[in-house]
């Protein structure tokens, strides 16, 4: 028992570092693939690391009337995202602290990260910050319920909101479920929205009228900006690993598994991440960004799909 605890603790620790280490790489990979797809050479996949390092060593420029909140938010944002990411099984389910927070909590953690970021966007009192925050909360006000609905359908299948439990149930196999398919589509949409990817938002733009996430962080610089960037990368990683551990859970090392299983798990995890990155890049390059006020329909669809999946499960319970 004790050594199981220790093993789990190890898994937990390694995962926390692993996600931190892999997040920039994932972003770099996506950018690289996108560049390739658009016939550009693109920067190296390790460029994000260099960016982060550069930013970290710059001094932070603060607007005159920036408050303490403005300076605290990046750390909160990063911490919340990191903890969330650390609780999603990546290569093994045996996370020692998995029981301290279930899928709903993880969603809520991301929500609070967004809450504070939106506040930070309004802190300096510029019009662009306002644009960003108000659009961000509009998007999230649809994305979050959609996410909750997805959680519901997963939880109803697995009789648990505990990610590790869900994952193991999935590994055991639940057969093909319409509701799960719906949930998958919905999750994909939510993931795109949450990470501010095309078509909802364009991480690469600074064109005033279209930007959402970038507008919020417009006033940030130096280490604060670095933390925010890193948090965003972590979030992307988190969602991809979420999809991975729920819908393609194969290869996950079960709790207290031997080193072999762990290595296997890591390998499969890497493969999943790469696949996810490529898929995302292809998806992003293949469509155009949509107008801000088309986004609600897009997300509304996700919400409806999630609700539909949940309803199906509710009803199928007595069949």
């Amino acid at each position: 028992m004790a050594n199981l605890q220790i093993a789990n603790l190890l898994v937990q620790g390694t995962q926390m570092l692993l996600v931190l280490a892999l997040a920039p790489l994932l972003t770099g990979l996506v950018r690289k693939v996108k560049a390739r797809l658009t016939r550009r050479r693109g920067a190296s996949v390790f460029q994000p690391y260099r960016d982060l390092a550069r930013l970290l060593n710059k001094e932070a420029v603060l607007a005159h009337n920036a408050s303490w909140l403005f300076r605290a938010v990046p750390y909160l944002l990063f911490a919340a995202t990191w903890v969330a990411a650390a609780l999603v099984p990546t290569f093994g389910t045996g996370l020692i602290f998995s029981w301290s927070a279930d899928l709903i909590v993880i969603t809520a953690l991301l929500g609070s990260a967004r809450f504070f970021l939106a506040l930070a966007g309004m802190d300096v009192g510029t019009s662009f910050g306002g644009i960003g925050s108000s659009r961000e909360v509009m998007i999230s006000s649809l994305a979050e319920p959609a996410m909750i609905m997805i959680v519901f359908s997963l939880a109803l299948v697995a009789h648990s909101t505990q990610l590790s439990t869900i994952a193991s149930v999935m590994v055991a196999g639940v057969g093909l479920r319409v509701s799960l398919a719906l949930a998958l589509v919905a999750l994909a949409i939510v993931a795109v929205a949450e990470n501010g990817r095309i078509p909802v938002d364009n991480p690469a733009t600074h064109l005033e009228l279209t930007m959402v996430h970038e507008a919020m962080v417009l006033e940030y610089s130096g280490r604060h900006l670095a933390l925010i960037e890193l948090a965003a990368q972590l979030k992307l990683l988190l969602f991809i690993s979420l999809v991975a551990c729920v819908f393609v859970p194969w290869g996950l090392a079960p709790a207290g598994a031997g080193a072999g299983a762990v290595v296997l798990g890591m390998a499969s995890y890497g493969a999943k991440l790469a696949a996810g990155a490529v898929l995302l890049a292809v998806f992003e390059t293949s469509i155009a960004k949509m107008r801000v006020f088309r986004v609600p329909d897009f997300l509304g669809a996700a919400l409806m799909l999630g609700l539909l999946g949940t309803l199906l499960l509710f009803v199928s319970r007595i069949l």
Partner: protein
Amino acid sequence: MALAPTVQLLAALSAVAALLVLAVAGAVLARGPLGRPVVYGGALAVTLLAAVSALTAIPAPIGGLVLPLGIPWIGANLRLDALSAVFLVVVNLGGAAASLYGLGYGRHDHAPERVLPFFPAFLAGMNLVPLAADAYTFLLAWEFMSLASWALVISHDKEAGNVQAGLVYILMASFGTLALMLAFGLLAAGGGGFTFEAMRAAPPTGWAGAVVLVLALLGAGSKAGLVPLHVWLPLAHPAAPSHVSALMSGVMTKVAVYGFIRIVFDLAGPPDWWWGIPVIVAGAIAGVVGVLQALLQSDTKRVLAFSTIENIGLIFVGLGLALAFKASGFGGAAALAFTAALFHVFNHAAMKSLLFFGAGAVLTATGSRVMDRLGGLIHRMPVTSVVMLIGAAAISALPPLNGFASEWLVFQAILLSPELPAWGLKLSVPAAGALLALAAALAAACFVRLYGIVFLGRPRSEQAANAHEVDAFSRAAMIALAAICVAAGLFPGLVIDALQPAVTALIGVKMPAQSEVAWLSIVPVAESRSSYNGLLVFLFIASSALLTAFIIHRLATGAVRRAPPWDCGFPNADPVTQYSAGSFAQPIRRVFARTLFAARERVEMPPPGSLAPARIEITARDPAWAFLFLPLAGLVERIATRANRLQYLTIRQYLALVFGALVLLLLVLALWT
């Protein structure tokens, strides 16, 4: 069976008496310098003691007492059981905080003689309702509570709209009371007596029970602010002085919830399977409508009032689930849902009082409740801004604060509901879940807006620019409530366990004791199913944030340079270029409020060269007014106008009326067989 009075019951009663005495004292001392300290100080002491004794009363045995008051042949029946105790704790904690706050806030009141007598009376009424154990005493206390709060709502009767608000309030209140009166009439007709004992002994059967449910939903719902009976709430709560608004929003609505629980769970007998549905639906609708309207308001206290409607909705969804589970015999699930509801009752009382105090502090500091005249207060009011941030985060259900804990429990309860056999529930519960999730997300948006506009950014008015932090009493009250929010969020297990006696009393089953669970985390059903540990999450976040900060400042640079804002290269523009309350809500308005509230924007763009300012006018209407209450009022007016002709007949015509009546009655007799 006659219950013996317990110490706590006597303590609660003496608290009521003491508060009434304070009310008299308030009337006498109002104008003098002693008035404020005596009334608020006294109320603070009394409510604190009452809160403690009520806390000890939750697990204690039931105490009962019959005073020779009220309806003579049954007397005033008083009873202190676990449920009453739980709500007494809520009432008196809120009351204590409000009194403490009032010690400072009352200083700015220009007409104390219109507040001081009624404030303790209001508290007394709210303390008496949970103790009442017969219909008359209950309704007496209930309506007395409404009356006292009405007097407080119109305490600033010179300000426009306040008297009107009071009017709408007292009308809805008496509507609710009459509905409850009918409900009790039905219950008593079953048992023959007005005492709750007799009602329990002979619960209504068949349709009677259903009617009682509907009447209770109307009666208690109108006081709690369920849509569409909520219209008085956003008018009345802001009209009152802020510490009273806090009491009305944070505490009185909970007393209404108590009334609903007492009637439906305790007196109305075993529920039918469908009883949960109307409750759940009403709650879910209130949740979404309330928060959406909160997003449309530009007056801080109105925003808070509407957000109260949303939270009441959440509570009622919990209660509805509990009803449904109870009816279908899922004791554990019912206990979970019921606990969630009670937990949220407690949480919302704390959060909403805190937020109203904050709004009041802003009001005293800047003299304005209009969001678009505020801003940048985080620099001027450090303490208020911090506690308000905690309150906003808590009510937006962000972990690890208390609002999230109770909402999480509600979600867990929803996830158990597929077990329910009935189709109606299978379809309505998930929809309610989706609506709740929507409401939660919108609540976050709403409070980002509130906090961001009021406390962040640059001041939008002179007053905001040179606001000052409020007095120590107010700060103390706010800090205390913020502490409660944090504590209840970090150690939800303790609260849940404390609530269990009440749950057992009404559901019959209790949740697994949380104190046994390792690491103080909460496990509503089973570890494998779901668990949450606020403390641990908090520690994780805090430690990793600090760690990061430490590492960065150590390994990278901690250098900071102050500069004008970048803002895409604009020179720092006038503060009015900031996002305003209206503009911040614009996307959500366009997405949600177009159809529901017929929200419209009318832009007046002056012709080129004209110096007139461009204007935007935002209009939205509350469907409850547009489709229910205004038509009703119109109808009454029309009938009144018609009937009024009778005032102007000639004597001969009046005689004709008498004559007609006579002939009519004679005809009746002639046709009588």
